């Protein structure tokens, strides 16, 4: 069947690709703000905090923040679609426990036990994904439920036990450094590969375009043929799978126990939001989130080295999170006070939804 040849030999109007020069486009974004902040804090720490410039700093920094970095990758895509997953830390604890049980109680070879843990992680993601994508339940309520459910299973399976008899070969592999003595642990390689994979998935694939469109306007996304339910299901299963990797990492790094990684999900969400991702969805990028995770890791490490007690760090991170979210609104308010500026039209102050100028001509009712 011949498609009608709609002739295209019309005088090509010239369209510029970008409205702003490259430099400006890079600088005037939230991601750049977080990177700049990371640089400022890092340089300041190296300068004035004793021991921060030692060889071990980077090494321990990565070892400690690896789970948060891992979990932040799928969480970024989930929040960009406007959903959220509070159950990642519980999934991590459950999959870590399963690794221990499969390896020590069922006597499976280590790699088989890793397989079991990953499958359990994917199953947890499937539960979340099915309830949110296909039953259309609010993800906040669902993942509060699965947070308690998976944590309960992890504590139930392990009870008072803590399993740590994993093969030396693997636990050492975790601590070895790249090229023998560089200050980067070996684990950074798989971490980097995963980060690049998620970066490409989000920014350079049609799947990633769909993720943004779901976050910005899921009804329009459906009209262009984006399969919203399938996309969300895949994202939640990815979150489950990556949480399994983090669970395995944690069990090898310390020990497999029911109460590990408690409240870790809140730190992951804080890092993602600090990285410039909007909780309403539709805005945010992976490089920004990596910067957010590193920023929190550097602040933690620097403050600990400086002898600052843990709770002060918590205060700083809490305030940073609040500041990063209200900074734009605060600025428009301050700039509004500056005399001589035309105040913005009094858009209706509806909480939570951003007011937009209505199109001329009311949309006639279709029902």
């Amino acid at each position: 069947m011949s498609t009608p040849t709609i002739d295209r030999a019309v005088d090509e109007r010239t369209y510029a690709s970008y409205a702003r020069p490259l430099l400006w486009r890079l600088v005037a974004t939230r991601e750049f703000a977080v990177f700049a902040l990371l640089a400022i804090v890092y340089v300041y720490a190296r300068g004035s905090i004793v021991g921060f410039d030692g060889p071990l700093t980077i090494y321990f920094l990565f070892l400690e923040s690896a789970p948060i970095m891992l979990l932040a990758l799928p969480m970024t895509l989930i929040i960009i679609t406007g959903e959220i997953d509070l159950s990642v830390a519980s999934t991590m604890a459950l999959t870590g426990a399963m690794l221990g049980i499969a390896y020590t109680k069922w006597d499976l070879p280590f790699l088989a036990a890793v397989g079991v843990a990953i499958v359990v992680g994917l199953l947890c993601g499937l539960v979340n994904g099915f309830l949110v994508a296909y039953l259309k339940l609010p993800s906040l309520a669902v993942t509060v439920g699965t947070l308690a459910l998976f944590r309960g299973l992890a504590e139930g399976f392990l009870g008072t036990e803590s399993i740590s008899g994993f093969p030396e070969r693997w636990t050492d592999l975790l601590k070895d450094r790249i090229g023998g003595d560089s200050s980067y642990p070996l684990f950074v390689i798989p971490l980097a590969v995963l980060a690049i994979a998620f970066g490409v998935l989000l920014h350079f694939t049609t799947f990633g375009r769909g993720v943004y469109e779901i976050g910005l306007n899921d009804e329009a996304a459906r009209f262009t043929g984006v399969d919203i339910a399938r996309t969300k299901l895949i994202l939640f299963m990815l979150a489950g799978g990556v949480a399994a990797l983090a669970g395995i990492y944690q069990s090898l790094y310390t020990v497999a126990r029911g109460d590990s990684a408690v409240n870790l999900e809140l730190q992951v969400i804080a890092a993602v939001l600090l990285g410039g991702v909007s909780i309403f969805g539709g805005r945010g990028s992976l490089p920004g989130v990596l910067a957010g995770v590193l920023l929190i890791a550097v602040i933690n490490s620097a403050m600990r080295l400086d002898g600052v007690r843990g709770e002060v760090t918590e205060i700083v991170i809490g305030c940073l999170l609040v500041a990063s979210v209200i900074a734009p609104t605060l600025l428009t308010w301050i700039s509004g006070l500056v005399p001589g500026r035309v105040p913005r039209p009094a858009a209706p102050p509806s909480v939570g939804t951003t007011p937009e100028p209505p199109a001329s001509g009311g949309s006639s009712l279709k029902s």
Partner: protein
Amino acid sequence: MKIKKRRLSALAVLALTASVALTACGSDDGGDDGDDGGSGGGGGGGSSSITMIPKSLGNPYFEASTAGSQRAAEEFGGQVDEVGPTGDAGPDSQVPFIQTATQQGVGALVVSANDPTALCDSIEQAQDVDIKVVTFDSDTECRDLFVSQADAQGIATKQIELIADQIGGAGDIAILSAAANATNQNEWIGLMEEDLEANYPDINLVDTVYGDDDDQKSFDETAALLRANPDLKGIVSPTTVGIAAAARYLSTSEFKGKVALTGLGAPSQMKTFIDDGTVTAFALWNPDDLGYLAAFAADALVKGDISGEEGDTFTAGDLGDYTVGADGVVVLGDPYVFDSSNIDEFDF
């Protein structure tokens, strides 16, 4: 475009808030825990800098042990910093602090371990940069020296002895422990069970519950214990937080006086319950002395006076001489029994 300009100024505000917060904390001397960060450069001779890591901050028992170790530090011219996880005592929460100490290259680490094996990797990394590692109160497998408040057997038999004569030698008893994986707790419970089978045939241990060293959980577990076993005679709680919560519940319930309670408790917390008769007697050791001894042991290791093998001896200030026992254990002494007669003399 307006929107772009706003983001640029968002950058300015963000940078400002972060650097202000950091400078404020950087210069401030880090709260009330003594002087500035570790002086670095420990190693042989000279003043040794010691980092003390309790199970978690906010536990008065460890506040006393830290005070003891700081008292010792003044005597041997060293310096002790107390760092540690806040809130939950998960297995992985102490690791970052051990690593930070390794980065600072402190002289010695004095740790009360949350888990027998979880810390081994990071402790070995510390030992690689020849940091001496002393555990106290709760042991781990990979350390130079373990300063035990009393030998486990002594602690177990003392508590069984106390509960036995409080319940008249017969009946059901239960144990309210701390965290499910706490090394010292499980060790004592094991020894208590052996002691019961051997010497107290008609006392039987009906249940062991875990309060996770949390007020609310210990309180509710005690209530559940009493409800699940109506004819319970006595409760043993080998943890200061557990025994205080249990006493608090008992003093407000109908079981006061009917169910005996003993275990390891801090005098300051237990004083009200000794006075109102809920608890007749309990044992403990002086955590202040424990911290004091642990600091001296660490200092001796750093100065090279001892190397941790069996038979080495060192003097621990006014506590006198101590010799290192089998597989590197130094015992503070026998647990001390507190009751209404001597409760008022102590303030820790």
